């Protein structure tokens, strides 16, 4: 549904082709509206849709009947009901989730992200703001700038919105009084200066009556600025700024229909691209030139920021999904440690040190977040000390990725934000939920500044003296699966062959090194991290290390694997079905867990993530402990 403005109707009747030609040249502006239901936000959007004829008669009929049932405007039409789409929202009269609305003017098409105002929906607001060029902040003329106005301004600015409209609504309820409007502007000006919002305009409106929404209202002769729609029609777009920046094109997909064609498909994040352009492929840094920009309807001479294209390169360079094609003379950096602002979006809080999937551009890596440097109080903008981040919390923390990623700082003074290579999401590896989003500030130089002490006796020397190849045999499996039993037998067999070994057992370590740790998820992660570090030191000393820990989470096992040299980490999955382990219940722990006396017990009320590709897989229902130990030794010795 998309209907023309009144003024267009005549042209459509007369010459629809001419009208369509005009439509084709329209630009697109995406904006967000923030404010609570009390500020009349949904009413204002409803008004924009209504006045630009975006509402059909059958919808109007439904709206009238809904208004009588759930409306808050008595017998009048409640425009808010047009916008609140979920039944829970209509019943409770609140906006829960972001809704996208569409309308157009003579110059532009608009996509409005209508976002909820309450603090508990901060994540939804951030979501809506992430794709917007502009924010319309609603304030009630009777109430003025409130805490939530400041919070919304801050959040919108945080995700890179540079242009703001302060829509002072419900002017009809203050008798269209200029003094009331001026006071609110002065108040907001002070705040905008404080947080660095440079581009903003204030417009006095009445969503209910339509004053200054589409056109300037006679009710406020003292106001000489544009109406809301006039402003939305003329405000500059971020797209122009994006095109003026150096070329960045994240490679999304390699197009290889046959031996003769190898194209790189992606959406141009910034700059322009065309045949002959000198480009650098990152992170490899290889230089080459663009050969062609290929489309179904012919080759392009130039493609610009925002377009999804397929390019071919002059040389056979290595380039795959996640790589970035960039301007040769002005490429982005690659790094693996960063400072970032993080917005936490999940009920389960951040676990510092835990590995999360991080998606940035077309790059997928594992990232660990450190304990936050501070959390930001979104109402007062104060910095608070924080151990972690909970739902809707915003904080600044350091992040380490398991390999280098190509990135750009998200926010850059004076130009559009680098959304494609500066914005990221974090995904829980267990539930696959999107738990956070973030904006990169800069790369940390720590890895360059803090050099490790050089050791004269190298790890190779240690290994050579012992006449063996170091390894970490990492036994994982349920409690009672037989990890310790098998590990013990393996160590005996290796010792018998004159190998230098050491067995790190879960229970023993918890009596000493990890005495301070409990069984919460965070403590279990730290437990494994410490054991991993110790195992690495021992492997550096040339030993064959055996560890027996439940280590239920793939992310942590992966973390330890990454600490070791290539091929040194040997994951041994001691595979005993839960029912079997519980039947054995050597330590009586399952009985306790079933009785509710032990919390977070793996297999009962805490998950076990089985390895997907362990180096050695032992099915204890098929092999005795001794046979299993033989298998491990045999595989270890066969390793080259």
């Amino acid at each position, binding site marked *: *549904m*998309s*209907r023309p403005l009144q003024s*267009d109707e005549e042209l*459509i009747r007369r010459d*629809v*082709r001419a009208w*369509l030609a005009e439509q*084709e*040249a*329209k*630009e*697109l502006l995406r904006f967000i509206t923030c404010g609570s239901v009390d500020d009349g936000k949904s009413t204002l959007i409803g008004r924009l849709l209504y006045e630009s004829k975006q509402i*059909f*008669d*059958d*919808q109007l009929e*439904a709206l009238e009947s*809904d208004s009588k049932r759930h409306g808050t405007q008595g017998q009048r039409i409640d425009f808010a009901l047009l916008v609140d*789409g*979920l*039944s*829970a929202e*209509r019943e409770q009269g609140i906006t829960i*989730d972001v*809704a*996208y*609305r569409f309308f157009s003017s003579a110059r532009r*098409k608009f996509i409005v992200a209508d976002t909820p105002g309450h603090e508990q929906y901060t994540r*939804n607001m*951030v*979501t809506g703001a992430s*794709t917007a060029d502009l924010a319309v902040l609603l304030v009630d003329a009777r109430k003025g700038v409130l805490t939530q106005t400041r919070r919304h301004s801050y959040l919108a600015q945080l995700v890179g919105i540079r242009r703001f409209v302060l829509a002072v609504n419900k002017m009809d309820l203050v008798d269209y009084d200029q003094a009331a409007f001026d006071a609110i502007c002065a108040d907001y000006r002070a705040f905008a200066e404080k947080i660095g919002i440079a581009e903003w305009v204030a417009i006095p409106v009445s969503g209910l009556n339509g004053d200054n929404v589409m056109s300037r209202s006679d009710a406020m002769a003292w106001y000489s600025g544009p109406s809301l729609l006039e402003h939305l029609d003329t405000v500059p777009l971020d*797209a*122009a700024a994006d*095109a003026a920046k150096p070329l960045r094109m994240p490679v*999304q*997909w390699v*197009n290889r*229909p046959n031996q003769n064609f190898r194209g790189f*498909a992606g*959406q141009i994040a910034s700059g322009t691209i065309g045949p002959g352009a000198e480009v650098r492929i990152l992170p490899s840094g290889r230089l080459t030139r663009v050969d062609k920009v290929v489309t*179904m309807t012919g080759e392009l001479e*130039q493609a*610009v920021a*925002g*377009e*999804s294209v*397929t390019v071919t390169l002059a040389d056979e360079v290595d380039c795959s999904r996640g790589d970035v094609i960039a301007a040769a003379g002005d490429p982005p950096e690659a790094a693996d440690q960063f400072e970032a602002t993080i917005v936490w979006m999940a009920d389960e809080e951040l676990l510092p040190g835990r590995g999360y*999937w991080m*998606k940035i551009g077309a790059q997928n890596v594992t990232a660990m977040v450190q304990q936050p440097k501070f959390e930001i109080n979104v109402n007062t903008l104060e910095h608070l000390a924080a151990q972690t981040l909970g739902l809707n919390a915003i904080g600044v923390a350091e992040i380490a990725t398991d390999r280098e990623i190509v990135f750009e700082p998200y926010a850059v003074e004076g130009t559009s934000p680098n*959304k494609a290579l500066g*914005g*990221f*999401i974090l*995904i829980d590896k267990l539930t*696959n*939920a*999107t738990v956070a*989003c973030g904006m990169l500030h800069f790369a940390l130089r720590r890895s360059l500044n803090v050099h490790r002490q050089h050791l004269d006796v190298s790890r190779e020397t240690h290994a050579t003296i012992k006449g063996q190849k170091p390894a970490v045999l990492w036994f994982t499996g349920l409690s009672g699966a037989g990890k310790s039993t098998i590990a013990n037998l393996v160590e005996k067999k290796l010792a018998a062959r004159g190998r230098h070994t050491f067995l790190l057992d879960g229970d023993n370590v918890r009596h000493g090194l990890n005495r301070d740790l409990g069984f919460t998820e965070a403590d279990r992660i730290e437990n494994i991290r410490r054991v991993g570090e110790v195992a690495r030191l021992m492997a550096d000393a040339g030993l064959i290390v055996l560890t027996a820990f439940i280590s239920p989470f793939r992310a942590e096992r992966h973390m330890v694997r990454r600490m070791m040299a290539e091929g040194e980490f040997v994951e041994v999955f001691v595979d005993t079905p839960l029912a079997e382990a519980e039947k054995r219940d050597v330590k009586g722990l399952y009985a306790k867990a079933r009785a509710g006396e032990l919390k977070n017990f793996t297999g009962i009320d805490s998950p076990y993530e089985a390895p997907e590709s362990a180096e050695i897989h032992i099915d204890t229902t098929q092999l005795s402990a001794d046979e299993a130990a033989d298998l491990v030794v045999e595989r270890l010795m066969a390793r080259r």
Partner: protein
Amino acid sequence: MRSLTHLDRLEAESIHILRETVAEADKPVMLYSIGKDSAVMLHLAKKAFFPSPLPFPLLHVDTTWKFRDMYALRDKVAADPAIQLIVYKNPEAESKGINPFDHGPIHTDMWKTEGLKQALDTYGFDAAFGGARRDEEKSRAKERVFSFRDRNHRWDPKRQRPELWSLYNVRKAKGESIRVFPLSNWTELDVWQYILKEKIEIVPLYFAAERPTVERDGLLLMIDDERFRMNGETAVMRKVRFRTLGCYPLSGAVESEAATVEEIVAEMLLTKTSERQGRAIDRDGGSASMEKKKQEGYF
């Protein structure tokens, strides 16, 4: 420097979504309903992966009650060697002879909702493209581009994944799936403008022509084949077209003179009823009916 129009931007976004799905999903499929939105989505997919053939099959969940013209276009599309088409019919609905005349809402439920779930499970598709748009209906306005479904294909509007920038989370556990809507941000007018600009072939039923019809329950129904049951009515030739296409006994026509895309656009812009109004399916269950159907697994 060229500046992009709103259609350029919508096209680029849709192509990005199509490619992202293909790059990250294990086994994607495109729901092909033969309507104008499907036609646009298919055209975008051809552009996204050119010069490669489509890297996924098309799936038509057939109810056996579509218009004959729709089957004709479907078969023409499938004749392209670069396109693989799967036609799925719910065997239970087929054996029970479920039809729109005798079975009311069960017809849609069994052929479409159940048929779709069965097809996705049978072939193990983990991501399915659909042509739905956010401007069509209120609950769709709140749905993500990548809409996560649990093992039972259910949609939980309260547990949607946040969707930021153009970063889509395509991860899911085994058995779970994702419905992907590349046209989320398109409006009906955008679709028509794009059809015009790109010269995309659509089913002739969208254009006005003399067709045999009867008026029933406020809808103008077309008698497309001999299975149509007359309730003592007589067929009347009317110049009609269809704004949306589904099962022919459930699709209401509008009287119209519009025989070209331009004329359709003009009529659409000057008309006073919304696109879904001709669909019986949205009405049963009140204003929340689409939200409810979606939770149950309807596309």
